[in-house]
C-alpha cells in the first residue's frame, strides 16, 4: 500500500547509458582533438607527395620508373577523360557490376541452402573450403582459353571468387543464428518459410552484408587481374600496356581511379547499411 504501489506502477525509466552522457566530458589534450588528427593526416600526405616529387626531380630515383605527382596529375587530367579511358572504365565497370550481382545472388542463395539443408551441405559442403583456397587468379588463363577475350572470361573469374566466399559466409550466417531466438520461434509456432523469413534471414543480414562489402573488392580484383592476363580492353589491360611502355604516371592515374571506385562503393555500402541495420547493436 505504501512504497510498493508506487514502484509497482512503473514509469518508463531513462536507459542506463544516459547517465554517462551527462557527465561533463574531460577536455581532450590538443593532440587528441579531431582537428589535430585531420591536420596530421593532410601533412603526412603532403609530405609524401613533396618527397616523391623532389626525389624524382633530383633523380634520386629514376623518374622513368617511379613517375612523379605532377606527372600523375597531368596524366589524370589528360588521360582519364579520354575516349580510350572511358571505354576501359566501361568495360571493367560493366564486368565488375555483372559479376558482383551474379556472384553475390547465387553465392548467397547457395550458402542459405547449404546452411538450411544438412543433406545438401553433407554432399557439397566439404568442397567449399578446398575450392575457396585455390588462388583463383591462376585460373585466369584457363578461362581465357575457354571463353576467349570476352567479358565472359572476366566475369567467370570474378564470380568464381565472389560465389564461394559468399556461399561460406551465408552458410555460417545461418548456422550462427542465436539458439535462444530459434527456441523462442519454435515455441511461438513459426515453421519453415515463416521461420526462415522472420528469424533466420533477418539475423543473417549483418553477416551477409559484411560479406558483400568484402566481395565487391574481390570482384574488382578478379576482373582487373583477368584483364591483365589477356583482354581486348579494360583498366587491367591499360595498366599492362602503360607499364610496358614506361608511362608510369598514367599507370598511377589508373590506380587512383580504381581506388576512387572502391572508396565510393564502400561509402555507398556504409550508407545502405546504416539505413538497413538501425537495430544492430555494435
Amino acid at each position, binding site marked *: *500500500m*505504501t*512504497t*510498493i*504501489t508506487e*514502484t*509497482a*506502477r*512503473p*514509469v*518508463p*525509466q531513462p*536507459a*542506463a547509458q544516459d547517465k554517462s552522457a551527462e557527465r561533463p566530458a574531460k577536455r581532450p589534450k590538443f593532440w587528441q582533438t579531431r582537428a589535430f588528427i585531420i591536420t596530421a593526416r593532410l601533412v603526412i600526405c603532403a609530405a609524401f607527395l613533396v618527397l616523391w616529387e623532389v626525389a624524382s626531380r633530383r633523380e634520386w630515383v629514376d623518374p622513368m620508373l617511379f613517375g612523379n605527382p605532377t606527372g600523375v596529375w597531368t596524366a589524370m587530367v589528360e588521360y582519364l577523360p579520354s575516349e580510350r579511358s572511358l571505354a576501359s572504365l566501361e568495360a571493367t565497370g560493366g564486368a565488375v557490376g555483372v559479376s558482383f550481382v551474379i556472384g553475390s545472388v547465387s553465392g548467397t542463395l547457395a550458402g542459405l541452402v547449404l546452411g538450411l539443408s544438412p543433406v545438401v551441405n553433407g554432399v557439397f559442403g566439404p568442397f567449399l573450403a578446398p575450392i575457396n583456397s585455390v588462388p583463383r587468379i591462376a585460373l585466369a588463363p584457363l578461362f581465357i582459353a575457354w571463353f576467349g577475350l570476352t567479358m565472359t572470361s572476366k566475369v567467370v573469374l570474378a564470380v568464381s571468387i565472389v560465389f564461394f566466399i559468399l556461399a561460406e559466409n551465408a552458410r555460417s550466417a545461418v548456422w550462427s543464428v*542465436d539458439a*535462444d*531466438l530459434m*527456441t*523462442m520461434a*519454435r*515455441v*511461438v*509456432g*513459426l*515453421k519453415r518459410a*515463416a521461420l526462415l523469413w*522472420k*528469424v533466420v534471414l*533477418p*539475423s543473417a*543480414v549483418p553477416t551477409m552484408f559484411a560479406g558483400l562489402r568484402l566481395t565487391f573488392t574481390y570482384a574488382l580484383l578478379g576482373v582487373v587481374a583477368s584483364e591483365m592476363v589477356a583482354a581486348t580492353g579494360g583498366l587491367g589491360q591499360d595498366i599492362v600496356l602503360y607499364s610496358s611502355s614506361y608511362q608510369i604516371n598514367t599507370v598511377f592515374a589508373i590506380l587512383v581511379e580504381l581506388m576512387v571506385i572502391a572508396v565510393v562503393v564502400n561509402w555507398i555500402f556504409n550508407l545502405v547499411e546504416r539505413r538497413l541495420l*538501425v*537495430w*544492430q*547493436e555494435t
Partner: protein
Amino acid sequence: MTSRTEAGTAVQAATPAPAARPAPLISFRDVRQVFRLSGKGDGSAARNRELVALQDVNVDIQAGQFVALVGASGCGKTTMLNMLAGLVEPTHGEVLLDGRAPRLPNMDIGYMFARDALLPWRTARKNVELPLETRGWGRKERRERAEEMLELVGLKGRESQYRLQLSQGMRQRVALARTLAPDPSLLLMDEPFAALDARTKLTLQAEFLRIWENNQNGDRRKTVIFVTHDLQEAVLLADRVIVMLPHPGRIAEDRVIDLPRPRAELLGELQFTKEFQDITHGLFERLEGAIGDRGADAAKQGETTTP
C-alpha cells in the same frame, strides 16, 4: 470456490466422491532424463558421458495453480519446462499435458525465457505481435493487442523502440507482454526476472502477479510454472513450491504456500512477515542443507562415465 460444473458430472455430483479431484492438467510420471555428452573437451580420448538431468520426477499440477520450481542451476528445471513445451521428450517415463504428450507448437502455451529472446530487428510492438502472427490475428487486431499489452507492462510510448534502445528491465517487460499477448492458459516462466536488479525485479514481480491475479479473461486463472533459483521469489509468488536438488536433478520437497491472495499489492511487506519467514526458512534448509552436506559427492554420482 472449486465448483466447476462440467457436462456429465450431474450423477457424480450427488455423491460426494472422495476421488472428485479433477484430473491434473500436468503430470510427470517417473520421468528420467539422460543427456549424452559427446566428450571431446577433456583432452582424454573421446568418451561418452551420460548426464542424468532428471531422476524419478513425479508431479501432478492442477489447472489454475501457480507452481514455483526452485533449485540451484543444473537441477533440470529448464528441462522440465522444455518437456512441457514439447521441445524435449523424456528418456523414460511420461509427461502429460491435458492427458496427452506435449507437442510443438502448442498455441495455448506462453514460454518466457531468462534472456529476453527479443528479435532485435523488430520494434517492441512488432515483437509482441509475433505470437499473434502465428495465431492468425489480423493486422489491426495485432497492433491494438500489442499496444494494449505494452501499456499493461508499463511501456506505453516505447512501442517503436528496438531492443538496442531498451534497458534490461524494459526488454523483460516486452518479453512478458509477448508471452501474455495471445492469452495462453499455461505460462512457462524460466527465471524471467533473474537478470534484473533487485528493485526492477520487485516491480516486475508485482506487475506480473497483478496481471495473473486480476484474472483477465474471467473464467479461470492461468496455470503458471515459474522456475527460479530464488527461494524468496518462489514463496512470494506461488501457491506451491517444489524444491529441486541437482546431480541428479530430483524433487526434494513439495509444499503448498498458504499465504493470502491477492498478494500483488503486498509483496513488499509480505517479505517481512513471520509467516513468510518461517516458510522460507524451512525450505531454505531443505534446499541449501542438502547441497552443503552431500552436494560434492552427489555431483560425481550424477555423471557416470562409460569408456
